[in-house]
């Protein structure tokens, strides 16, 4: 069915309404993590390891505690023992036990009556370290003779005889690989490497925690998921989960980095030790970069076979990833996304997860997918170039469609890859003339999207306006899109709906705003809850009219008889029903608790033009086009915003962002000066095309849009640089020294 045939005449869906939190955010009133204060509040500071790997021999807080106004010091000794699995990983990462595992690993924390005093006290806590051999590079960490970071950490998946730091091993695939490669006219294999990058949210982690001797606690925190903060803090501290109440603040960016805990359990531990006084902890930017979760770094071997006409016959990917001193790098996600865009008769994936002396990796926008895309989409481009084929034509020839078997096994349901490729091909940017030292790059990207535990409640107010309580913090305008869907469903003005992101006491559990799920999952849940409330309002009207509830329809914000046979009554508007609700049966509300099935995956295609200064190796982005399948854009401006923001992060990852560790294993660029995220003048306007192949699993056709956009830029930029210079870069970042060296290598001098 053609898209426009499926597109009913929505009143609100697809309009660019003003976001409900806009006024607070342009006036400075909106309250973020560090903006909360509680009466009697103390201020905390953490002591962090200056070593990449060191045994903690002694911690002496005597001098700190002697300062007037210092109220509590906590170390690992203040946390419960006996945790296992991910609970133990979380606890160990929040506060080092016997061994500090990376530069920036917290080893103690202190609470005092002012922030300056807490910082002074932290400096007076004496920690005696015995430095141990360290390793930070993924390819070094996987060597058999690398320093063993956590013997015994390997899980059931690791076959015997693997090097000591391999903690997870993974393989999957299908088809006859040898036959596939034999069938190809050209087989190429290359190794690609990406460095770890940070989500780079501008708001550092911040929280105020309060915990009494009775085990009851409160927390105000910037987070993507207040229920995750609750269970994680409870697990780390050995508390009863429901005794903690966690209230999310406005959130200053997360991109996956705020789906876990770092300082939050420390503030509760300090509070408990300080007699239950609330304790505020705010990370510095350098703490954020050293000690919160960046993404993994990857080393990737890829092999692809292709016929001369561009048909891909086989693909193989073997990835090595380090996600810090803990398991949990996005290895399987990376491998499952690697060949997701291609119909391959034979494919094999192998993955090794390795420990290294770096902070525990956290999720970062489409975790794993950008690295995989860098490797696979670069090699597809290399082969297409060698065969003289158009990059979009090659991708169209092999593109997966509905019903095709995916590289990771299951068959695809409705997807829009072909539509994004066609739209990219048709866009003016794909035909724009290029000058000297300029080149064009194309790449596709994929993300599964996700549903997750979801609880939503909605209720009708006395005047017929509506409130919606959701558990997914609003990171990029989700209150606007949820408000649009509820208003559309109810048939009332958008302005009559207030969407609230609520604390953990108000709803059943929710997964965070991650996996591109907020608009899909909370949206679907809100629509279901709204339909319950509508059904109830129809029942109230039916009772009033003395007809069967089934004989009542809901049309444009009013109950009305379903047809001439149902009776002749004037429509009963929502305000009228709401105004009488106390006398017609009480509150009118709806709710949803569950795992909303029907997730729709999202493909995207990016086209970038660059100019490379052949004398300095500096890359300038001239044009950038994002084409992505949104399913349906509820609020197009915020869909475009997700596309543009993902592209900008990907461009940063491609060109200049990287974790730089010294020989001593310490992070050398723990600040925005040398951790170089794109600034306004680094980028052009970012053109967008929203493709809408509606997701049949969502009442309004929504797919998630947040994550796919960061996936194609890494290879798209690499492919454009190759087109501009003839030099192929297979390692990120493609910063000026790297590009200049590559240019010199191909030009012989």
């Amino acid at each position, binding site marked *: 069915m053609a898209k426009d045939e499926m597109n009913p005449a929505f009143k609100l869906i697809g309009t660019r309404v003003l976001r409900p939190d806009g006024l607070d955010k342009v006036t400075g009133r909106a309250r973020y993590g560090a903006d909360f204060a509680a009466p009697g509040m103390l201020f905390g500071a953490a002591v962090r390891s200056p070593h990449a790997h060191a045994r903690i021999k002694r911690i002496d807080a005597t001098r700190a505690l002697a300062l007037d106004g210092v109220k509590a010091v906590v170390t690992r000794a203040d946390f419960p023992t006996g945790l296992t699995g991910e609970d133990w990983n979380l606890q160990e990462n929040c506060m080092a036990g016997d061994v500090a595992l990376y530069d920036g690993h917290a080893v103690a924390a202190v609470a005092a009556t002012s922030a300056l005093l807490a910082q002074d006290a932290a400096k007076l806590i004496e920690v005696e370290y015995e430095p141990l051999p360290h390793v930070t590079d993924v390819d070094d960490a996987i060597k058999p003779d690398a320093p063993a970071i956590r013997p015994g950490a390997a899980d059931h998946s690791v076959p015997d005889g693997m090097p000591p730091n391999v903690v997870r091993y993974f*393989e999957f695939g299908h088809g006859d690989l040898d036959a596939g490669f034999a069938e190809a006219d050209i087989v190429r294999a290359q190794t690609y490497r990406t460095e770890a990058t940070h*989500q780079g949210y501008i708001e550092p982690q911040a929280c105020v925690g309060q915990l009494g001797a009775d085990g009851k606690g409160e927390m105000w925190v910037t987070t993507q998921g207040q229920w995750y903060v609750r269970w994680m803090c409870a697990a780390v501290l050995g508390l009863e989960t429901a005794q903690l109440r966690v209230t999310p603040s406005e959130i200053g960016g997360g991109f996956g980095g705020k789906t876990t805990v770092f300082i939050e359990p420390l503030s509760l531990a300090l509070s408990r030790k300080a007699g239950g006084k609330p304790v505020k902890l705010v990370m510095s930017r350098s703490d954020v970069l050293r000690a919160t979760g960046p993404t993994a770094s990857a080393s990737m071997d890829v092999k692809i076979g292709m016929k001369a006409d561009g048909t891909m016959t086989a693909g193989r990917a073997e990835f090595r990833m380090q996600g810090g001193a803990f398991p949990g790098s996005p290895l399987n996600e990376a491998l499952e996304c690697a060949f997701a865009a291609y119909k391959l008769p034979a494919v094999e994936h192998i993955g090794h997860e390795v420990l290294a002396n770096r902070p525990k990796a956290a999720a970062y926008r489409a975790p794993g997918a950008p690295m995989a895309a860098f490797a696979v989409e670069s090699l597809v481009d290399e082969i297409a170039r060698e065969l003289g084929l158009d990059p979009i034509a090659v991708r169209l020839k092999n593109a997966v469609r509905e019903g095709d078997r995916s590289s990771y096994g*299951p*068959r695809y349901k409705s997807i829009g890859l072909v539509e994004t490729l066609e739209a990219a091909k048709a866009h003016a940017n794909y035909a724009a003339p290029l000058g000297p030292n300029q080149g064009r790059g194309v790449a596709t990207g994929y993300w599964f999207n996700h549903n997750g535990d979801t609880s939503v409640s909605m209720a009708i107010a006395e005047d017929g306006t509506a409130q919606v309580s959701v558990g997914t913090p609003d990171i990029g305008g989700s209150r606007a899109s949820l408000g649009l869907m509820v208003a559309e469903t109810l048939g009332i003005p958008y302005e009559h709906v207030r969407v609230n992101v609520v604390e953990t006491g108000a709803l059943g559990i929710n997964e965070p705003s*991650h996996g591109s799920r907020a608009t899909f999952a909370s949206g679907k849940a809100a629509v279901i809850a709204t339909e319950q409330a509508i059904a109830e309002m129809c029942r109230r009207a039916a009772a009033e009219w003395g007809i069967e509830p089934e004989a009542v329809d809901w049309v444009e914000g009013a109950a009305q008889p379903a047809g001439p046979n149902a009776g002749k009554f004037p429509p009963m508007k929502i305000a009228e029903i709401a105004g009488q609700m106390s006398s017609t049966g009480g509150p009118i509300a709806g709710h949803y608790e569950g795992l909303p*099935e029907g997730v729709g995956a999202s493909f995207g295609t990016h086209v970038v033009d660059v100019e490379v200064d052949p004398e300095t190796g500096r890359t300038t982005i001239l044009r950038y086009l994002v084409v992505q399948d949104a399913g349906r854009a509820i609020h197009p401006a915020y869909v475009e915003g997700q596309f543009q923001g993902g592209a900008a992060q990907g461009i940063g990852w491609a060109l200049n962002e990287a974790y730089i560790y010294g020989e001593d294993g310490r992070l050398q660029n723990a600040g925005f000066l040398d951790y170089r995220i794109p600034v306004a003048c680094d980028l052009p306007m970012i053109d967008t095309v929203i493709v809408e192949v509606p997701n049949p699993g969502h009442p309004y056709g929504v797919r998630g849009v947040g994550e796919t956009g960061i996936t194609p830029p890494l290879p798209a930029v690499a492919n454009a640089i190759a087109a501009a210079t003839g030099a192929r870069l297979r390692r990120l970042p493609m910063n000026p020294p790297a590009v200049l060296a590559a240019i010199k290598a191909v030009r012989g001098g």
Partner: protein
Amino acid sequence: MVEVHLWSGLKRLTDGEITVAVEAATVGEMLDALTRAHPGLAPVIEVGVSAAIDGEIVNGRHVAIPPGAEVFLLQRLKGG
């Protein structure tokens, strides 16, 4: 019977089998049956897995598996 396609890395735990046929009407029953058939899979399933039923990735044990459905076991996915 449901034919469950495993990822090939699990072969070590299933005596080399890459597809396992089990009697199950829901995801939960399928996972329990897999563990009974191949106890080595228990830690894998305990850590968390997703299932794809006719192309749709699901996480709930309650989700029904229609007769003749194509079922894949996948590692639990994360998002950012």
